[in-house]
Structures are given as C-alpha cells and as structure tokens.
C-alpha cells in the first residue's frame, strides 16, 4: 500500500510564554497542540472540530509550516514536512494550500483579483506569462465568479465572493491537499450554503483532500468523511462521520453534539441536553489526568480517581478511537 497523502504523527506545538527577569522566572509552556496523529487519503475530507483554543488552527498551521512544529512528524505521501527550509518548502506549496476564515483579512486590498490569482503561477513559473491571465479567468469561472470581474479589487466583492476568490487562489496551483480553516464561519447562512456546495463540487472535480477545520458541527457533518474531536490540544475522539454523529463515545463529544441547537423546533424542544458546567480550562494550566475530567459527568464512574491522575490515551476499536477511561474499560 502506498503512503497516505497526509500522515500526522504525534505532532506537538508548544509556545513558550512569559519571560525571565532579574528576580523572577515566569516562563511557561503553552501546549497548543500536544500529540496529535491522523491520516488523510486523497479525495477524502477529515474534519477537525473543537471549541476555541483547542488547537485545531494551530494544527493546520503546523502542518503547512506557518508555525514550525515542536516535535512529531508530518508526511506528505511519505515525505517529511517538518524541519524543511523555505527553499525546500517552495515546491511542496504547490501541493498543499490553505484557505482562511476571514475573507476580508486574507486578501491584499491593493492587489487586483488578476494579480492575486496569477501571483502563485508566476512564483512557481507555471504557464506562459501570456496564458496566466486566462488561467486566472478559468479559475474564477470554476468558483462561480464572473471572469470579466478579473480586474476588480477585493473591496468590490461581498464576503461570500471574496471567499470564492480565496478558494480560486488556493486552487491556482492545482494542489492535492487543502487546509480549510473555518472557511464558512464568517459568512451568512444563505451564502454559507453556496460555499459549502462549491467546496463539495470542487473536491469531486479535482479529487482534492480537505482538512476541514470548523467549530460548526452541522457543517462538518455535511462535508466530512471522518472527524477528529479536539480538546485542549489533544484528539479525544476520532471516528467516521456517521459513527461519530450517531453514537459518540467520548463524554466531551456527547456534550458538544448536545450543545448544538437544532433548527427544528420540534426536535430542539424535546431533545435531551447535556449542559457542561464551567469553561474550557487554560491550556497554560491544564488539569491533571484527563484534561476534560473537571467538566465530565462520568468522572465518578471510573474507579480509583483515575480520571484525575492518569491521562487516557486513544483506545482504538472498530476503526474509531476515543480517549476516555470509561469507554476503554467498557469495550475491553
């Protein structure tokens, strides 16, 4: 079997914070991503979900080298990506591209659409200079924009249209893998549906692999083949889409799914809710043992106070995994 398109193994990204003064030393380590592993095959979509601060965006940024990883490995078809120099990265950027959340901040306001879309082609010396603009127009057409608007500036477009430009820019180099960091979160519902559909259509057309980062579980369910749930820098549950949404195993996943309001009053008013108490703890001072245990309803069901003492590792069975003492003992 050939190597998977993307293989992430025990990826860690720690940020040093604080400083050492003459009389004090308050240097600490923020473990934004703390041992994340997953695989992604061509043409597939992997969802990375979790609440703010759980490390999902940092994971994507560490994969693409925007934050150099602290340790661990990221392989693109068997080729190691961590520790590469800028020059070594350059040819690989053609294969991995990123789409950002904020369509207002991620496009240069002083570049025309034409310049935004031909710049990657120029850098990578793709297509003849004369053909580049034609390629850019074809890209605009592919993302559902009017190719005649190619000489306009980003401010002349609405949020949804700008996100389409961001997608066209990422597609310019014909990548195999797209990292999408909350691509529809800033958009209105009616526009969000347009972009979600466009992403699905482009994936099919170009056989793209998506690492889809989002906090909106309904959108994730709609687009992803497999889902990883993150909490405080770790994956707490990973499963194929239907398994995860129909029978979540980790108590955090259960609570997260139960917190999503359902846009149907009959269901919304009768369903059972798990309301978690407290906030997500600070990643600077994560709780001991299982980081979820202070908010977990099942903490008393595990003997010997194990949840507070021992951090559960991912327990694999039937193509899915969950990091919980309770589920590990249940199925063992």
């Amino acid at each position, binding site marked *: 079997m050939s190597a998977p398109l993307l293989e992430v193994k025990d990826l860690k990204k720690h940020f040093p914070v604080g400083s050492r003064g003459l009389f004090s030393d308050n240097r600490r380590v923020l473990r934004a991503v703390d041992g994340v592993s997953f695989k992604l095959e061509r043409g597939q979509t992997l969802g990375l979900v979790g*609440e*703010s601060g759980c490390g999902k965006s940092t994971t994507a940024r560490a994969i693409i080298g925007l934050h150099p990883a602290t340790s661990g490995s990221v392989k693109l078809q068997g080729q190691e990506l961590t520790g590469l120099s800028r020059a070594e990265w350059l040819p690989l950027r053609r294969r991995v591209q990123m789409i950002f959340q904020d369509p207002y901040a991620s496009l240069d306001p002083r570049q025309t659409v034409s310049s935004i879309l031909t710049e990657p082609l120029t850098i990578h010396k793709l297509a003849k200079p004369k053909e580049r603009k034609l390629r850019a127009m074809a890209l605009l057409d592919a993302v559902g924009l009017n190719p005649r608007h190619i000489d306009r500036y980003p401010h002349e477009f*609405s949020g*949804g*249209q700008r996100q389409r430009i961001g997608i066209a820019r990422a597609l310019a180099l014909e990548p195999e893998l797209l990292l999408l960091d909350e691509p529809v979160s800033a958009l*209105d*519902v*009616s*526009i*969000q*549906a*347009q972009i*979600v*559909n466009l992403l*699905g259509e482009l994936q099919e057309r170009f056989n793209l692999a998506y690492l889809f980062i989002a*906090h909106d*579980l*309904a*959108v994730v*369910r*709609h*687009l992803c083949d497999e889902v990883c749930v993150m909490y405080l820098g770790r994956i707490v549950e990973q499963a194929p*889409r*239907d398994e995860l*949404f129909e029978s979540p195993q980790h108590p955090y996943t259960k*609570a*997260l*799914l*139960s*917190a*999503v*309001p*359902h*846009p*149907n*009053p*009959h*269901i*919304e*008013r009768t369903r059972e*809710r798990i*309301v*978690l*108490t407290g*906030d*997500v703890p600070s990643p600077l001072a994560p709780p001991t043992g299982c980081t979820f245990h202070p908010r977990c309803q099942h903490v008393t069901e595990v003997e010997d106070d194990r949840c507070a003492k021992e951090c559960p590792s991912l327990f694999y069975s039937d193509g899915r995994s969950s990091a919980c003492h309770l589920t590990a003992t249940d199925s063992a």
Partner: protein
Amino acid sequence: MATALDVRELSVRFDTQHGNVQAVDSISFSIEEGETLGLVGESGSGKSVSSLAVMGLVPSPPGVVSAEAMLLGERDLTQLTPEELRRVRGKEVAMVFQDPMTSLNPLLTVGRQLTEVLEIHEGLSQSEAFKRAAVGLGDVGIPAPEERLAAYPHELSGGMRQRVMIAMALLCNPKVLIADEPTTALDVTIQAQILELMRDLQERHGTAILLITHDLGVVAGMSDRVNVMYAGRIVETAATTPLFDAPCHPYTEGLLGSVPDLTGVAGQDLYSIPGQPPDLAELPPGCAFAPRCSRAREECSEAIPATVSPAAHRLSACLDAELLAEKGGLK
C-alpha cells in the same frame, strides 16, 4: 397578558455621502410580557439597527429615526426627551450586546460597572449597590461573586463576560430585554449555558425578550414567535413552530433550507439561495427578494408586496403567501 413593547412603523435611514440608506423600512412588532420574540435575518437586514432605534442609540446624524409610536407599557418612547429616555434605558429596557469584550469597559472593574447602573437608576449607596451587584452575579451563575466584583473584564472568560453583561442588564429588573446576538461570539457548550440561563431568568422575572440572531437553531429553541427580516423589512411573522413547519415567504423557506443540521441526510448538496443580499443603497424596485426568488414574476418588481395574513396569527409580505400557506411550504 399585557404588551410589554409595541413598536409601530419604525423606520431608520442613514444619510451618507453615498446616498441615503433605508436600513429599516416601516416595521411593526410587539412583545408580550414573558414572551420571547425572535428577530432573524442576515447581516445588513436591519435587525440590530431596529433594536438600537428602540433603545434610542442610533447616532444622529447620520441616522434619522421615525416611528408612529414605540410604546413601552403606557409610555411612548418617541415622545420622551433625551433625559427621560436615559432614565428608561438600562432600567426598563436593557440590552445585551454580541461582543462581551468590547461592550464592557476594560478600565473599570466589573463591580464598578455593575454598581453604576444601580447608583444611577435606583439611587442606592455604594455599599448597598455592591451587595445587590454580588447577588446579581450570583443569579447568573458566577461562582464567588463577591470576589469577581473586583475583577477586570480581561480576567474573565468570554462566557463569564457575557454573564456579567446579562447580570448588568437584569439588575434593575427591566420589562424588556433586547439580546443582540448574545451567544454568537461564544463556543457551543458555553452558548448552551447562556441560553439555559436566559430561559431560567425569564421564567423567574417574566421579562419580555427580543432575541436577535442569525442562528435558526437558537431561535427554534428560544422564541415563541419569530420575525424574519430582509433588506430592512419584516417579510414574515409567525409563531415559531408553524414558521419552521410551513414558511409562508420564499426567503424564510430558503433560509431554513440552507442550514445544515445534525439529523438530516448528510453529504448531499445544501439548498442555497442564489445571488447576494441586495445593497441597501440600491434596492431593486418592488420586492427586495425578487431577484433571488424562484417564484418571482413581473408583478413582484412593480410594487412592494403588501403584508397579508395567509393564516391565523401569521403575516407574510409575498404575493404567493396564501398559496404557500395552503400547500404547507415547498418541501
């Protein structure tokens, strides 16, 4: 039950260099005591501006607010002097904003900001006010409220800050609470906590809530009735369940159809409304939704469709409203 707030023919216009923008175009709605009215729409539909207008917070110039009446109980807010309005605001009508970080003053402690409300509106002494403020914080589920009074906003998490905002809004026991996207900036598990809290507080105090949101899931769970806004006008009004079951306006229908959920068929194309929301400075003639509407015909672009009542307790501003009501929506 008595009507807590009755807004009639409210319009807000902004006179800008790029022309006049009609952000809100003669909308009318009312809320009963203890009721939650949802106000749904996309960005730019005028939902926030209309609530700011009720609070008397639209900056003028460039804003021009006009209304036939805005009755808060017996009193007409449009007839009050700025000084009288200031006494009503925060006491009888209070507001919770979307972003708890920017709506609290970062330079003042939570205690100072909470007691200010009580000193101004209730004339309490500082020590009395601090006691009441601590009780208020306890009511919204903040642990160790006395200690929290000394904290600055940046020391609190997003969910805690939003609790402080809600506590502040409820300190004087207002008749009407306007909540403008109160949970949009929060994570879902925290959102669930805040919504639970709002339901609970409403039950205890009988507050009328105007809930502004773009999240149809939140509306489905929280509101008794819903107003749907598009391009500055209310296009549909109905009780929550009938609205979701059988929308009588094509925009509502499209909006409901385009939201993915956790139970339907996954992986198929979502229904999506074609095109973009209109630019308020260049509204199309007639129905503003017509250029995006699958049912649109020539008539739709000739005049703004009158608001009709296609069924009991329902309003819709669509020429096909009755047709839609009969067949129970397109789906």
